[in-house]
């Protein structure tokens, strides 16, 4: 077996040193009746690389590859071009096969990357500090809600109806157990977000207001007034960014006063990967740093006075604080954070702005074309690279029919909000730099066919 170096002679010599006759003697603490002997039901024996590859390729072939067709899906997972060097670099064994950097003298590579990553995320979000990553955007969002609860000692979180429904679902599922009061509802198909309503709903019990920017329908509004109102009432503003590329074009939530900004970093470096692994981004104001969840990398010096980096403020964490920790998170999303950081370094400020501009312009043009189809209207006044259209038919049906024509035409709101019949005709369409003019033309003409 190709991954196992011990030879039969090695095993014999080792058993002799240990002083037992067989390997089974080493399992003597396992009660006889619990030991498995003989073959394991229904599972195949070992296989060659070639055979395994054949099987996996067969399964892969059953999927319609996003890059092989006109593709317009988003809703929290975005398809961007990832430069070749990103995947090359993250596969260096020193990054790929390292552990969490508990021995900093031989983990300066990972640690410096995390320090750079934290700085990139903090600057992008307009915050003072950021952590070394969370699992994904949805779990980062829930952690932000619990953090706001710790800071304000209040239990009521107001979720904007423009927050991704999976994120809402995670918060609702968790809140049932923690005793938090999560207020949420489904969005309305309007050009306006619910910011004005949220402002009215803030009261003395509110721990935080959670608002997505751009929101699930792609809309954006200034958060400044909402931040001010929340803070006036002793609550925090938590902003959620599921498409960080947007921040190359628009103001960051931190600039508009958000106290905690979390996000999904998948857009940069990571790829679609059918939903995971992704990378949760988590940033906040300096004054809240000791309430943050997750790992933090900090700068220090070594015994010779040279600059170096270590994991720090670990008294917040589970391995020290146990049941009093700020979160139970341990393993986070290190390698995806590395991919994000490399992609961001390749872009730089100029590249990010160019990329954002390209996304926005393509999306605006596509929206104009789609609006010219009979019976189709665009909901948004404002958007970045994702917008909502209303179709004259059930959007789930339209998506299936487009897929039959080998076009992945968007995400139907019916898929995201199965119980909201008034959203069933709405379709979310994302246009990134990977969509060509021909792709958009194909979508427009296929949609005309489907609707005719």
């Amino acid at each position, binding site marked *: 077996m190709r991954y196992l170096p011990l030879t039969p002679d090695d*095993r014999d010599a080792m058993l002799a040193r240990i002083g037992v006759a067989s390997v089974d003697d080493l399992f003597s603490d396992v009660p006889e009746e619990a030991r498995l002997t003989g073959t394991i039901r229904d599972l195949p024996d070992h296989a060659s690389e070639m055979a395994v590859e054949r099987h996996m390729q067969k399964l892969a072939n059953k999927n319609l590859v996003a890059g092989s067709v006109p593709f317009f899906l988003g809703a929290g997972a975005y398809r961007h071009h990832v430069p070749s060097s990103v995947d090359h670099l993250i596969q260096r064994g020193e990054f*790929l096969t390292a552990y969490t950097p508990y021995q900093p003298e031989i983990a300066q590579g990972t640690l410096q990357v995390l320090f750079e990553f934290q700085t990139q995320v903090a600057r992008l979000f307009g915050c003072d500090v950021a952590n070394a990553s969370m699992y994904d955007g949805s779990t980062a969002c829930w952690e932000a809600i619990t953090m706001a609860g710790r800071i304000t000692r209040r239990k009521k979180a107001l979720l904007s109806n423009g927050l991704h429904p999976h994120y809402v679902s995670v918060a609702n599922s968790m809140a049932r157990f923690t005793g938090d009061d999560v207020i949420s509802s489904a969005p309305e198909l309007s050009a306006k977000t619910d910011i004005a309503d949220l402002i009215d709903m803030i009261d003395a019990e509110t721990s935080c207001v959670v608002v997505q920017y751009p929101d699930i329908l792609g809309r954006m509004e200034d958060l400044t007034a909402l931040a001010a109102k929340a803070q006036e009432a002793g609550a925090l503003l938590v902003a959620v960014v599921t498409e960080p590329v947007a921040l190359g074009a628009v103001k960051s939530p931190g600039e508009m006063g958000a106290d905690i900004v979390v996000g999904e970093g998948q857009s940069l470096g990571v790829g679609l990967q059918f939903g995971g692994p992704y990378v949760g981004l988590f940033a906040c104001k300096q004054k809240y740093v000791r309430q943050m969840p997750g790992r933090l990398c900090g700068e220090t010096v070594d015994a010779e006075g040279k600059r170096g980096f270590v994991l720090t403020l670990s008294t917040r964490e589970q391995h020290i604080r146990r049941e009093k920790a700020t979160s139970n998170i341990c393993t986070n999303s290190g390698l995806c954070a590395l991919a994000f950081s490399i992609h961001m370094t390749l872009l730089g400020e100029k590249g990010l702005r160019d990329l954002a501009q390209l996304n926005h312009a393509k999306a605006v043009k596509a929206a104009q074309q789609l609006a010219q189809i009979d019976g189709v209207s665009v909901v948004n006044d404002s958007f970045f690279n994702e917008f909502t259209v209303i179709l004259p038919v059930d959007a789930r049906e339209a998506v299936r029919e487009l897929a039959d024509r080998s076009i992945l035409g968007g995400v139907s709101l019916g898929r995201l909000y199965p119980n909201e019949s008034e959203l069933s005709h709405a379709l979310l369409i994302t246009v990134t730099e990977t969509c060509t003019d021909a792709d958009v033309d194909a979508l427009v003409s296929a949609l005309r066919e489907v609707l005719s």
Partner: protein
Amino acid sequence: MSMNNQGRPTRSEDIETGCAPATFTGNRALILEEKLIFESGSTDRTGIDFPAAPDAPSKLGGLERSVEIGLPGLSESETVRHYTRLSRQNYGIDLGFFPLGSCTMKHNPRLNEKMARLPGFADIHPLQPQQTVQGAYQVIDELADWLKTLTGMPAVAMSPKAGAHGELCGVLAIRSALEARGDAREVILVPESAHGTNPATAAFAGYKVEDIPATKEGRVDLDALIARLGPDVAGVMITNPNTCGLFERDMKKISDAVHEAGGFVYCDGANFNAIVGKVRPGDLGVDAMHINLHKTFSTPHGGGGPGSGPVVFSEALAPFAPLPFVEGQGGEYRLVEEENAEEHHASSFGRMVAFHGQMGMFTRALTYMLSHGADGLRQVSEDAVLNANYILRSLEDVLDAPFAPSGPCMHEALFSDKGFADGFTTLDIAKGLIDEGFHPMTMYFPLVVHGAMLIEPTETESKDAIDEFVGALRHVVAAAKSGDANLKAAPHHAPRRRLDETMAARKPVLVYKDSETAA
């Protein structure tokens, strides 16, 4: 001096050896100092070319960015060099022996990486129409099947993102099951030797945490546990094999007693590598257990994730498992999510993550399982346990091994710091090992042993590699016993000397500040 005919010295007999002088650059040959991107890059430099954006009006709602973000860029050539240089300051499994106890740092097969990158897996969107991702659902279903079969459990939730997230999944299912029968309980019992994530998880799920004491043999004290059970105890969280590297012989009795008292048994499956193919947790009465795909099933640790922590469930807890999951019938697969949960999975406690879990880890783990097969996985646990016992017996004459007299260990060997010279600690052993070219073992965990050193070799190490490690460790231990001042100052040869963690925590510097804006 020997020279060739161009006057070039061909032998080194005249070179003075001894203390290395400092270099002008601070570099030491292959160990290269590397600036931060904020010091070397600039906001107008980029490593990516884009086509010009088409003309289109702005629809940004008046929110156009007006201030600079401050993101430095590098060209592609500089970027490749930056990260390559940084990578060389890291220790990884690819470089050498990495015996971190409880972390299962085994070889990460490269076939796994190749398979995860097939466009049919890597380039598909989680919300694509179900008819276009049948192969992805099949991967999830096949992996689920392996996990259920290997653990002897009837159900599995695939979405948890890592071990601690899996623990949360299991504990929330326990709470849901109790609530469903109108039985509010408040306490989760956790052994003193547990991973820190166990009590943190139980607290996160709203439970009070109480410790269960250990016996002198390093196992759960069955009598003390039984004495504590009662109508307020929701369940126990037990690691088996435990963090002392020992199999909990009384696991079945523990489970029976907990069930008898109306509670549930959560098993922390971090150490499943010791028993995969040898023991099925389902046969020991376990109700829920997470499996770290990044430990037992070889997906890479990546310098701190991503992980993946599917949770297997007993019949009693299966109805409460989170959404979504994949259901297969007649070669057709579909996702059970919010839309159809009502009819198929009405008791589910809800959703733990956006989308469906760590697909990229599923493809890697399934590739690994198919490679090893059922026979190979059993060999995995046998070799892992053999390697650990070999280490235990090769070191017990020089290191205190508190539980060695009671019998064999499982996949990891535990030692204490007893017998070191005054002022010498486990930390010194770790730093000494770094100089010898090894990654240290887990230090100061589990908490039940003073100055704990937990060594987990895994099955992918050869006898030669282990012999080398044992030789080096014996040497370092001798230095700690004799009070060698050089050891106290180790590491001497790593990219950095010991780092000042107190200073880092006292005045945290978590982001780079440009010198003109630095406080």
